């Protein structure tokens, strides 16, 4: 599920844009003015950037813009069956207004949103908290075995979510799990993770396992960018390592934390692969456990594209709103000093 870390330095990219390219245009214009027949050459110069952008733009239109538009269109349509529903003219697509949206906001959907919010509430703070802790410890001069730890904690990033779910799924399965073997041997009554009460923790653990290392490295990297003189000065002033960590390092990595937090949040709302993989091992996961699983069921099992599209639009809007609100809340603190 890992949230790919994104622009921790979005502001700096702005300054990185070179101001020079105007020169090429000027030269092209001058050239065309000097030699009359060079008009053709001028035209190619002007068209070149568009030609070079064409692959990206075409792919963007075909696989991002068109699907988005199509989803919105579908969400306002429904299929009307006439008569017995036989024959070519019997199924007609009609404008549905907001009826798909009204239908989409049913108890099942709200329950799935509730489950996923709980999942995110467990996963994101735990994952970021541990990622920050590990990053600070890696950066601390008092830690040992840092190379080994960094490598091993990052390693699950290379394991697909499906495979991670599969491995943890077996570790949750009492018949094959070493944990249950140990608790049985000790005569303890271990909680069943693959039960409807605890499965959300099981899923959060899979997300944590896959994501903590990546986020740790993102935070660790932004720590490394800080010149160490600051810490030296703080130490000479009598700061303890813990004070340095809390008063200097945490504020410095705050922008990185915000970005990793935001993208983890978005990723949790879209959870699909992990619960889908775990389903064969437990009865605790319904086909509508997460909102995207419900979209999948509506589209492919029920053949109700209008409902699937409306649900998709709702998920997208909620995701975007949450991102904006989240950024608004933390923006001042995180990026205030950059402007």
């Amino acid at each position: 599920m890992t949230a790919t870390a994104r622009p921790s330095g979005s502001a700096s990219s702005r300054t990185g844009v070179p101001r020079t390219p105007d020169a090429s245009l000027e030269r092209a214009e001058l050239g065309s003015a000097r030699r009359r027949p060079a008009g053709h050459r001028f035209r190619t110069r002007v068209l070149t950037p568009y030609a070079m952008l064409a692959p990206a733009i075409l792919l963007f239109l075909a696989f991002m813009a068109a699907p988005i538009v199509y989803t919105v269109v579908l969400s306002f349509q429904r299929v009307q069956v006439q008569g017995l529903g036989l024959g070519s003219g019997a199924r007609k697509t009609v404008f549905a207004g907001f009826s798909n949206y009204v239908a989409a906001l049913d108890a099942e959907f709200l329950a799935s949103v509730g489950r996923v919010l709980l999942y995110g509430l467990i996963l994101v703070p735990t994952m970021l908290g541990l990622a920050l802790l590990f990053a600070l410890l890696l950066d601390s001069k008092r830690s040992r075995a840092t190379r080994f730890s960094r490598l091993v904690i990052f390693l699950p990033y290379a394991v697909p979510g499906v495979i991670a779910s599969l491995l943890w799924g077996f570790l949750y399965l009492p018949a094959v799990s070493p944990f249950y073997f140990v608790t049985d041997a000790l005569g303890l009554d271990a909680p069943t993770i693959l039960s409807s009460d605890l499965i959300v923790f099981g899923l959060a653990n899979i997300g944590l396992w896959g994501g903590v290392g990546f986020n740790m490295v993102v935070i660790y990297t932004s720590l490394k960018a800080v010149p160490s003189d600051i810490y030296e000065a703080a130490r000479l002033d009598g700061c303890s390592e813990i004070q340095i960590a809390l008063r200097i390092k945490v504020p410095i990595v705050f922008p990185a934390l915000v970005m990793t937090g935001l993208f983890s949040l978005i990723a949790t709302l879209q959870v699909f692969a992990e619960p889908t993989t775990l389903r064969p091992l437990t009865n605790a996961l319904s086909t509508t456990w997460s909102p995207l699983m419900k979209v999948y069921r509506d589209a492919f099992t029920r053949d109700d594209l209008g409902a699937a599209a409306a649900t998709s639009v709702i998920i997208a809007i909620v995701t975007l709103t949450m991102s904006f609100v989240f950024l608004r809340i933390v923006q001042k603190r995180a990026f205030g000093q950059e402007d």
Partner: protein
Amino acid sequence: MTTTASTRTRVTAPRRSSAGSSATTLRPSPIATGILIIGALYCLIPVVWVVAASTKSAGELFSSFTLLPSTHLFDNLAQLSAYRDGIFWRWMLNSAIYAGVGAIASTWVSALAGYVLAKFTFPGKAAVFSILLTGVLVPGVILAIPQYLLLAQLGLTNSYLAVLLPQIISPYAIYLARIYAAAAVPTDVVEAARTEGAKEFTIFNRIALPMMLPGLVTILLFQFVAVWNNFMLPYIMLGNDTLFPVTVGLSGLLNQGASAPSMYTLVIAGALVSVLPLVLLFLLLQRFWRVDLAAGAVKA
């Protein structure tokens, strides 16, 4: 918290003033190291388990302590290879094709677009860039179903292209490529080549691309992992299991295991084998896994 007091007294104690020495005078902390080791062990649990479990026969899997290795690793691998005429290896090959071709195409398209956005001025540039950038925020998996419906109208679903094409466009990779291009390709060099009369595509392929290469390797690796790990898109697009990537294939195998637990040994051996290529790629190309680059932290 008890360490706070002791550290403070030590730091304020008279010390050599040379800047580098203070680091070495800090005593190693068993607590700090211990927490890191616990974190590392947590990350190793499933790995250790799958290595041990893949050496067991179906009977042993359910009867013996699972972290105790047995001797049936090669039996299990042979069984896995024999399953439906070696369809597992077909899945592995498919994953390699999807991830390899997809990552290369995606990196090239992103590099080209990023370079143009960084080094050219043209009407509509700001608009193109901001539209592409909003794509970063669009939840990718939500697009999978409409992508399926659109491709179905072209009759392209259930094919390699159905999984490859939608994953080539990556707004985030374009965003990164733009930052790399701005930082790594000096405008003077591009200008000089232009004055020499070089064609723009030649300048990109011969001059800019090599200069951007270190950053592009990072994009390539992250795109490779993203495609290799993708589940929902191929799960939706493909019906024919000879086209499955290994993630979808193993997930289906586990599904069958629910009714026939003997399949579990196949799934476990398959999980082990499927993880190896990426772990190897990861360990061998360690210096290219530049998360800092992927996070956009390039000093422009």
